[in-house]
């Protein structure tokens, strides 16, 4: 509480004048006054002619940036400071607002006084904290809230304030408090259009802010103005997408319909339109006199609080009973009579006789009062005290829309279902007795359109937490901005490389590089050429998509003859493999020295020193001698790597025949290992780690063989595991570096590789697909130059995304069962 606010003496009523200044972002304007009549002829007040100032109301979106220099706690602290000064006895602004409302409002002075005494508590720190937690959540207001998505993508969301006009209702001053609270915690810029029945509460709060901190960013983003609703000279100018993003409109059907004239793309209308509320009382409510008295008191609270000025107040109350049974109808009439008695007994801070009596309702009541056949009317001789109408059959009065001044209509219904039928989208609050019934019917109520379901008697104690009219208003007021990132690549990837001397076990199907993983696919590619230099590529995948199956890996590989071009669409060798990806079940046979995979169209044999690959019809036959040790890379699970994964590679010199033509080149075996059930394309390896993969073999004039395999990380990822075979020895590395060159079509044209102290230069002249390159080793740092070489590079760069790989996997959903 600031010192100045408490030191002053309490303000006498006489000092209150009736000028409502215009507040524009901390500036107080009291010139160009116009006089306005209050509703119901209760007096007048003056306010600056907004037509002269409307051009100053809008601000730019960029101006909101100052609100981001504050933490949410700074904002809450400020609101709490302001709240501390809002003492009706000492704060002249609030006092003036109260005195004006006391004349303009439909509520009597007693109820208003207790409202103005209690409402500032909404600005207590603990209350705001809870409000923020229940309505929005702190995190998105304070910063970007990150969520990990499929394929390791990340989404970050933050809620930003928007520029809004709030056309608030004035049936209770709580709406002004709530609007300012909402605006501040959402870091919005708000222009509050004051209602004629509460012309100054919002202004008083803003004036109190200005007293404390005129330049505070929160103060500088709140305005309050009065203009006559529907004044197109003002509204046409203001309601433009360049000025505002949101209109939060409380109020009647007419005024909201009117606002829709200004709607256009870029303006979001949030309507909190007027609603009616009802109650449903189960048969238990008429059980005995004690219950009837309790239900009468609860109903009276829901009907009478705030003098039935709120939309949440009960108006029509359905009671499950048999109207054709005299005893039950008698009990219902007794409930009506006792409810009327309870209404007159309500304390004056909660409910009083009406300030002004609605004559249309009185006319209707007088009309039905004279006959008992259809309706019973319970009321006192003073029409301002309210009335209770008890329908004697299952229909509400036709003038139910007019029910006000603490007037309710009890309606007997045969069953709860009959009551539910009458609930619709205009039913804001439904009070239910007893609670057990409430739980039973709440789904049905909600489906019918009810928005707020509450225990009978608790309607007006429900507070401001939670959704309003089935809307999350605060969340709607915000602009929810999304930031999407690709898969996170760890800054420092942890991984190991090793080499193992091949043993027969390595070629058994059950071999694993470590605990916790299973084989997630094995591939056997042959990269060979004939005497003319014609290059061939053939691949079979084993267990790679479906366990127990071999496939031809057709979409991008298959069996092809590779012309020396970069077109990337070479012809297929065998027509049967040219259309679809072939799957064949295989029989796995372990013999003493080898493992055989026998399938309809051929056979693969693996042994410690090499492997053999036969086409059943003799078109393809390769025999290979292993020239390397078994190379293994292990990437353990770590931040950015969702599961551990192994990659294994070994290189073999191949000879054989294709369609009777002798060929030579290499065969390699590579394997992936991952947690059970995964296949290679699901692992982080191809999704986020892999930038480039190279496998090559070269031969010197004396028949000595060399070659290797290595990876390069994607983007800037420092990932260079691999090995080279030199002088018959296999050496593994973690730091292999390859420098690619690209031609004008973004195709890989050359690669300069350094491994340990050695370097290799490849030139690529052939493509078998968009990502697969082939070409000779053109120079090395070795002592002598190789005479022949076969090199295969997979270079997808950023194109190999989770989505692309998942799309590939869709074809295997049936066979994989997921």
């Amino acid at each position, binding site marked *: 509480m600031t010192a100045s606010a408490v030191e002053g003496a309490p303000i006498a009523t006489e000092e209150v004048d009736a000028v409502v200044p215009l507040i524009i972002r901390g500036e107080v304007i009291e010139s160009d006054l116009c006089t*306005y*009549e*209050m*509703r*119901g002829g209760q007096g007048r007040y003056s306010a600056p002619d907004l037509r002269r100032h409307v051009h100053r109301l809008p601000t730019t979106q960029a101006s909101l940036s100052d609100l981001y220099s504050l933490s949410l706690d700074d904002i809450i602290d400020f609101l709490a400071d302001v709240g501390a000064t809002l003492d009706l006895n000492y704060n002249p602004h609030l006092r003036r607002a109260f005195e004006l409302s006391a004349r303009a409002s439909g509520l009597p002075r007693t109820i208003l006084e207790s409202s103005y005494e209690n409402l500032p508590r909404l600005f207590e720190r603990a209350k705001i904290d809870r409000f923020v937690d229940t309505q929005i959540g702190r995190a998105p207001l304070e910063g970007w809230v990150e969520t990990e998505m499929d394929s390791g993508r990340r989404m970050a969301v933050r809620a930003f304030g928007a520029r809004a006009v709030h056309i608030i209702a004035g049936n209770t001053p709580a709406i002004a408090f709530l609007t300012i609270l909402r605006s501040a915690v959402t870091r919005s810029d708000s222009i509050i259009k004051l*209602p*004629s*029945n509460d012309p100054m509460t919002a202004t008083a709060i803003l004036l109190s802010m200005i007293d404390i901190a005129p330049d505070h960013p929160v103060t500088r983003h709140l305005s309050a103005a009065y203009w*006559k*609703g*529907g004044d197109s000279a003002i509204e046409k100018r203001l309601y433009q997408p360049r000025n505002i993003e949101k209109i939060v409109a409380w109020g*009647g059907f*007419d*005024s909201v*319909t*009117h606002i829709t004239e200004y709607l256009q793309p870029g303006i979001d209308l949030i309507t909190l339109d007027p609603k009616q509320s009802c109650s449903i009382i189960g048969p238990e409510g008429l059980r005995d006199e004690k219950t009837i008295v309790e239900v009468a008191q609860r109903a009276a609270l829901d009907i009478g609080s705030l003098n039935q000025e709120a939309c949440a107040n009960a108006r029509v109350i359905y009671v499950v009973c048999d109207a054709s049974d005299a005893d039950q109808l008698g009990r219902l009439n007794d409930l009506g009579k006792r409810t009327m008695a309870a209404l007159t007994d309500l304390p004056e801070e909660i409910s009083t006789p009406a300030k*002004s*009596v609605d*004559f*249309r309702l*009185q*006319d*209707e009541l*007088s*009309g*039905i*009062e*004279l*006959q*008992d*056949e*259809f309706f019973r009317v319970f009321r006192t001789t003073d029409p301002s005290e309210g009335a209770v109408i008890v329908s004697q*059959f299952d*229909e509400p*009065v*036709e003038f139910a829309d007019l029910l006000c001044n603490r007037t309710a209509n009890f309606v007997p219904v045969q069953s709860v279902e009959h009551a539910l039928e009458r609930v619709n989208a205009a039913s804001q609050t439904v009070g239910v007795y007893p609670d057990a019934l409430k739980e039973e019917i709440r789904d049905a109520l909600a489906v019918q359109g009810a928005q707020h379901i509450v225990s009978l008697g608790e309607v007006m104690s429900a507070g401001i937490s939670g959704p309003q009219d089935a809307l999350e208003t605060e969340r709607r007021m915000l602009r929810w901005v999304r930031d999407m990132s690709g898969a996170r690549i760890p800054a420092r990837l942890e991984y190991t490389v090793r080499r193992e001397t091949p043993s027969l076990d390595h070629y058994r199907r059950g071999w694993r590089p470590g605990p916790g993983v299973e084989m997630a696919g094995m591939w056997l590619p042959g990269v060979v050429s004939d005497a003319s230099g014609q290059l061939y590529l053939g691949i079979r995948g084993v267990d790679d998509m479906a366990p127990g199956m071999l496939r031809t890996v057709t979409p991008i590989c298959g069996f092809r003859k590779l012309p020396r071009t970069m077109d990337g669409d070479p012809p297929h060798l065998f027509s049967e493999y040219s259309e679809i990806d072939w799957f064949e079940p295989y029989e796995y046979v372990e013999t003493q020295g080898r493992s055989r995979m026998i399938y309809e169209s051929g056979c693969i044999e693996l042994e410690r020193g090499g492997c053999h690959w036969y086409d059943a019809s003799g078109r393809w036959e390769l025999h290979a001698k292993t020239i390397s040790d078994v190379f293994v890379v292990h990437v353990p699970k770590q931040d950015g790597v969702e599961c551990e994964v192994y990659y294994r590679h070994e290189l073999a010199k191949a000879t054989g025949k294709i369609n009777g033509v002798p060929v030579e080149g290499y065969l390699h075996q590579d394997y992936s290992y991952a947690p059970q059930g995964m296949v290679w394309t699901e692992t982080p390896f191809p999704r986020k780690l892999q930038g480039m993969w190279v496998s090559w073999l070269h031969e010197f004039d004396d028949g000595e063989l060399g070659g290797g395999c290595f990876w390069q990380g994607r983007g800037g990822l420092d990932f260079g595991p691999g090995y080279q075979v030199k002088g018959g020895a296999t050496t593994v590395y973690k730091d292999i570096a390859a420098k690619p060159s690209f031609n004008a079509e973004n195709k890989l044209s050359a690669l300069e590789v350094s491994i340990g102290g050695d370097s290799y230069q490849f030139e690529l002249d052939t493509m078998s697909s968009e990502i697969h390159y082939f070409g000779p080793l053109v120079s090395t740092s070795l002592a002598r130059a190789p005479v022949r070489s076969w090199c295969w590079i997979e270079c997808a760069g950023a194109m190999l995304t989770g989505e692309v790989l998942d799309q590939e996997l869709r074809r295997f959903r049936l066979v994989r069962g997921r």
Partner: protein
Amino acid sequence: MLAAPRRELWSWGQPEREAAQLEIARARFETLREKVSQLAKLADLQRVASIDSLDDLAPVLFQHTVYKSYPISLITKGRFDLLTRWLDGVTSHDLSSVDASGCTGFDDWFDKLEAQTPLRPHHSTGTTGKLSIIPRDVREVERFGRLLLRSREPFGDEPDPLEVLRQAGTPIPIVHPSYRHGRHLAQRMLDALVHQIGSEETTYVLYEDALSADIMSLVGQVRGASLRGALDKMELSPELLARYRTTIERQANQDRYQAQFFERIVKELKGKAVYVVGVTAMLYEWTVKGEKSGIDRLFAPQSIIQSGGGMKGLVVPDDWQARVEKFLGAPLRFGYGMSESMGAAEMCEMGNYHPTPLTVPFVLDADTGAPRPRSGTQTGRYALLDLITESFWGGFVTGDRVTVTWDGCSCGRRGPYIDPVIERFSELEGGDDKVSCSGSVDAHREAMDWLVAKAGLNP
């Protein structure tokens, strides 16, 4: 007093007039509270045991809502037995033996009531579909007819316009651009005129048959649903629509029928002395049409043009009345009345309405409902007690705000007169910051369009 000529009644001073009124009012109250249960209940609620002054009557006047205090669902559910029971509560006639079972609608129900009882009820327009039902009986209808003619009786040295009109001795042509028959007050009035001063042959109406109370209620219900935005929930049986196909079609093609009717009037009645009953807005439309065709002084100057009902939202120039009178060739005569009361208040040449001394006028405080003093000039809610009615309670509070001056109209008539500016309280409602909407005309049109579409008609 009931028999005294108007010329005489207009000369009575307030003490004399009110003493006579009090005597009749007291007798009516005493008799009817025994026989009309709703009056008995009102008297009990208001703790009124006896009437010692006219002001004592104020608390026991019925609200205008009483004659439509039945639930509308009785009509939609066809519970005319219960509607009869409700009506029993506002009339002195015993309706307990009326068999209203099997009634299919208002029209049918009225037929049965008239066949089985002396009741000859009439109904209001019922803009929301709920018709006020005023339970007049045979005697009152007959008396109403006589009073209607007497209401034209002059005062002072004024000539009697009806006498002048009747000098020709032949049946007077009567012009009413609406239905010939029906139970709406306008049709009851037309019946009286035709029987007393005209003939069926010389009666010019838009439609020769009867205005249906059911169709009136139906249009009102549809209109109400349209205003509430609930037309999609409205269900009508095909039988009902089929039954009223003709009337729906007529309503939809009203403009064309009106034009034909206008041509017929011009052709057959030009220059004749006639009695016209028509709403002002329509007479103005005739004038505009007539002016375009160069028609002037359509009727003989002694014609009586009875009008009222306001302009129905039409925007008219300041000189509209002079133009209408020039076109018609006779002055407009205005009255202020309502379905619930027998005698209308006729407008004098000073432009004030004079309630007939056979009704007791009241000005009630708009907030408290207490009677304002019966002296000076008073503004408030208009209420009246109709002394003519004997079978139902004629005490009635309107929804109108009026200004009554208790004596001294320069026309010479003594007694209270009502300022011509009369407003509906329901239209005065609404705050300073009310956003206006022009709902009503659109709603009627939407209601008609909806009915026409439902009935499968193509206007």
